[in-house]
C-alpha cells in the first residue's frame, strides 16, 4: 500500500462516471430482467474498471467510484436497520425508493465493509471511503416515529457511527461524510452538525465532510454562498471540508481567511456539470488562488463533486487534467 502522500494530494470526491450500459442493467434489475447475482458480478467489474481509470489518470487517493450505489440515499436506506422500503416504488434505478421509519431504529451495522475490502483488494493507492451523512438521509426517509428530524438524525448518526468504526477496523484511514442537502436547508445546521459529530465520534480516521450545491441529474439543486456554513461548521469534529469552487468561482475561499477553520480544504477545481475539459493551466490557476488562503499542507485537490453524470472519457480527461495541473503547482512550491 502506498500511503506516502505528496503535497496537494489529488482525489475524487466519490463517484466515477456511470456508463450508460450500467444504468440500463441496473434498471433491468429493477424490472426483474436480470438476477441479483448477475448484477453483483456486473458491479464488481465496473468498480474494478473505475479504480483502474482513476489510477491511470494519476489520482493519489482513489474510491470505488460508488458504482454499486443507485444514488446517494438508497444504498444506505436499504441497509439502515428499521427502515422500510417500498421496492416497487421506482422504475428507474436512479429514482429514490419510498422509504419510511416507523419505530425506533435498532442499532446495527450496514455491511459496507465488504465494499471497502473490495476496493483495497484492487488498488495499492491510498483510498477514501464515502458515506452519506445523517442530515441527507433524514431529508429523504419519511419519519413516522421520531418527534422531529433532529431526534431521527441522532439515531441515524449512531447507526452510521457503528459502521464507520467497522470500516476503521477493516483498515479505512480516510472517511468522507457526504451532506449535499446542507445547502438546501441551512436552517438545519443547528441539529445536523451535532448529528454529524455523533456519527464521527471516536472514529480513528481522517474525517472529511463534502458539502456541495447538489449534483442530482448532473445539475445543482440550490444556489447561494457557503457563508451559511459559518461559523456553525467550526463546531464539527472534522479534519477536512471538501467544497465546490470550479463551477461557482472562488469568492467563498475568503471564508477560510475570515473564519480560519482548523480543517484541511478539499478544493473543487473541476466543474462536474460541464462536459468541457479543463486545461491543466486552468486547474493550476485555481489551486494558486486557494494557496493564497490555505497553506499547501492543508490543501487537497479534487473535482467539485462526484463524476457520476459525466461520460467516461470526459471524466477521465478531467481527472488527468486535474493531476497535470496539480503537478505544475507542486513544481512551483
Amino acid at each position, binding site marked *: 500500500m502506498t500511503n506516502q502522500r505528496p503535497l496537494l494530494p489529488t482525489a475524487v470526491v466519490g463517484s466515477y462516471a456511470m456508463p450508460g450500459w450500467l444504468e440500463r442493467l441496473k434498471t433491468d434489475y429493477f424490472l426483474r430482467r436480470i438476477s441479483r447475482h448477475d448484477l453483483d458480478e456486473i458491479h464488481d467489474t465496473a468498480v474494478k474498471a473505475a479504480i483502474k481509470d482513476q489510477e491511470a489518470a494519476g489520482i493519489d487517493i482513489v474510491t470505488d467510484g460508488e458504482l454499486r450505489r443507485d444514488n446517494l440515499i438508497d444504498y444506505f436506506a436499504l441497509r439502515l436497520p428499521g427502515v422500510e422500503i417500498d421496492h416497487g416504488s421506482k422504475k*428507474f434505478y436512479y429514482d429514490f425508493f419510498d422509504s419510511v421509519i416507523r419505530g425506533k431504529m435498532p442499532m446495527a451495522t450496514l455491511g459496507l465493509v465488504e465494499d471497502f475490502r473490495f476496493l483495497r483488494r484492487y488498488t495499492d493507492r491510498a483510498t477514501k471511503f464515502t458515506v452519506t451523512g445523517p442530515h441527507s438521509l433524514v431529508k429523504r426517509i419519511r419519519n413516522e416515529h421520531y418527534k422531529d428530524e433532529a431526534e431521527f438524525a441522532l439515531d441515524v448518526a449512531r447507526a452510521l457511527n457503528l459502521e464507520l468504526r467497522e470500516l476503521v477496523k477493516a483498515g479505512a484511514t480516510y472517511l468522507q461524510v457526504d451532506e449535499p442537502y446542507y445547502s438546501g436547508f441551512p436552517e438545519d445546521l443547528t441539529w445536523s452538525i451535532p448529528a454529524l459529530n455523533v456519527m464521527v465520534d471516536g472514529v480513528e480516521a481522517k474525517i472529511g465532510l463534502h458539502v456541495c450545491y447538489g449534483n442530482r441529474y448532473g445539475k*445543482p439543486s*440550490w444556489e447561494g454562498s457557503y457563508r451559511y456554513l459559518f461559523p456553525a461548521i467550526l463546531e464539527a469534529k472534522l479534519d477536512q471540508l471538501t467544497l465546490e469552487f470550479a463551477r461557482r468561482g472562488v469568492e467563498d475561499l475568503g471564508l477560510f481567511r475570515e473564519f480560519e477553520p482548523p480543517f484541511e480544504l478539499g478544493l473543487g477545481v473541476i466543474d462536474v456539470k460541464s462536459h468541457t475539459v479543463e486545461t491543466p493551466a486552468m486547474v493550476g490557476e485555481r489551486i494558486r488562488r486557494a494557496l493564497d488562503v490555505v497553506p499547501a499542507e492543508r490543501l487537497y485537490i479534487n473535482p467539485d463533486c462526484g463524476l457520476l453524470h459525466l461520460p467516461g472519457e470526459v471524466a477521465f480527461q478531467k481527472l488527468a487534467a486535474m493531476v497535470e495541473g496539480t503537478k505544475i503547482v507542486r513544481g512551483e512550491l
Partner: protein
Amino acid sequence: MILHVNFLPGERAGAAALVGEVVAALESAPADRRMLARLRVHLDWIQYRQSFREAVAVRRAVDCRGAAMPLVELAIDVRQATRAGLAPALAAALEREPGGVALESFGPLRASVIWGFNTLFWQHVAAWEAVSGRPFEHVLPSGRSDANHPQAIADAVADFWTLLRDLEMRNQLPPEIFVLEIGVGTGARAAQWLDRFRELDAERGRGFYPRLRFLLSDYSSRILDRAAQAVRGHREVSSFIALDALNPFKTLAFLRYKLLHIHLTNVYDNLPTDEMVRKDGRFFAVETRAYLPAALAAAIAEEFELPAEELARTIGKFLGVGPDYFPDRRRGVEFWQAVWRAVRLEERLVELEDLAAARLPSGLDPAHIEECVRAAPAEVRFHLSTGAVESFLNTVPLLHPRGFLQVQDIFVTDMDEYRQGFRGPGKLDGSVVNWINGALLREVGARAGYDVHFAPFHYRPDSRTKILYTTQRD
C-alpha cells in the same frame, strides 16, 4: 380488416353511414382480396380547416430492408369524404400511388419541405397577412391567442412573485432576476407581463422590478424590433435576443442555471416533429413525401404561367428567395399561398428492426419511448415531438435550481388520447401545427431531472391549450 374510428362521432360526422360505405366500397374495390385480412382502416376527423391529407389515402409499409410488406392502412378523413365520392376515391387510392408533382423523396417528417414553408411564413408573415387581409391570430380557433389572456398572465406573474418572495426569505434570491420568453412575436404578452409585474412590485414594495432582467427572444431581429415597441415602457429591464428555439442554450450558455422563469406559448406546436407507429408488436417510423396533386399542380402552373414540368424546381427556388422571387411581390405571395393550399403529404410506414437500432431524433433514446408506450394502447400512432424535445432539453440547463419552465400549447398528456382523435399535422394559415406528445416530454423531463406537469388552460371555455410547467425532480 380492422376498422379504427379514431374520434368521437358527432352529428356532423356521419360516421355510421360512412362505415357502411367503406365496407361496401371495399367489397367492390379492385384490391387484392387477400389484403383485406391485414387491412386497417382509420377514420379520422381532421380538425384543421386545411391539412396535408386527401379524403382517402393509402399508407403502405416496407420492412427494415426496404421490401414491401403486406400491411396496408387506409386513412379516411371523415370531414372531407363524401358518401358519393368515397367509393371512387377509395378505388383510386388502392389502385395506384398518388400522382402529381413530388416535392421530395420519402424521409422523416422533420426533414420535409413543409418546414421550409413554415420558416418562410414566419420570415414573411407581414407580406402573407397583407395579401390574405387578416392578421395571423384571426385564424386561431378562438380568433385570438391564449398567450395574451390577461388573467392567465396575472396569475403567472403572481406565481412567479411567490417564488421570488420565498427565495428572498431564504436569502437565496440572486441579485439579478433573469426571465426569458422564447417566441415573443409581437411582444404583446411580454408587455402585459411586465406591466403586471411592475404593478405588483409597486403594490408590495419589495423592489424586485429594478432587479428584473427580462429577455425577449425570437428567431429574427425584425420580429424583435416589433416586440421592442410593445415593451418600450420597460426599456431598462428588457433585452432582445435572436435565438433558435431549438437551442436556446447555444445562445445563452453564459446564463446556465441563472434563469428563474422561462415561458413559451405556441412554439412547440410549430417545431419539426416525427411520428412513430406501434402495430402488431412492432415499431414503424412514419416517413412522408410532400407532393402537389396533379389537378392542383396543373391549375397553379396555368395560373402563374409556369411550365408544369418546372413547378417542383420553381417551388424549391421560391423557398430560398421568398415572395420576391416574383417581380411583383404580391403575386409571389399569391403563388406561395396557392402552392401551400395544395401541398399534401403521402405517408409510408418503415418497419424498425428494434428501437435500439432506430435512428431516433436527438435527445430521445429507446428507454424514453419504451416507458412512454408501456401504458399506451397496443396499436398506436404517436408523435416523437422531435423539435419540442430538442428545445426542452436545450432550455432546461438555463434554469436556476429553483426556476421553472412554463409552456402554453396543445399537448397530448396521455398516450390513450392518440386513438381518440387526429393530432396533426395541420396547416394554420401559412404555418404547420402539430400536437405535442406531453407524455413523452414527461419521460424526457424525468431523465433530465425535471418533473413535468400539465394543467388545463381554464381561462377560456373549450380551450385545447394546456400549461406545461416543470418542478425540480428530487
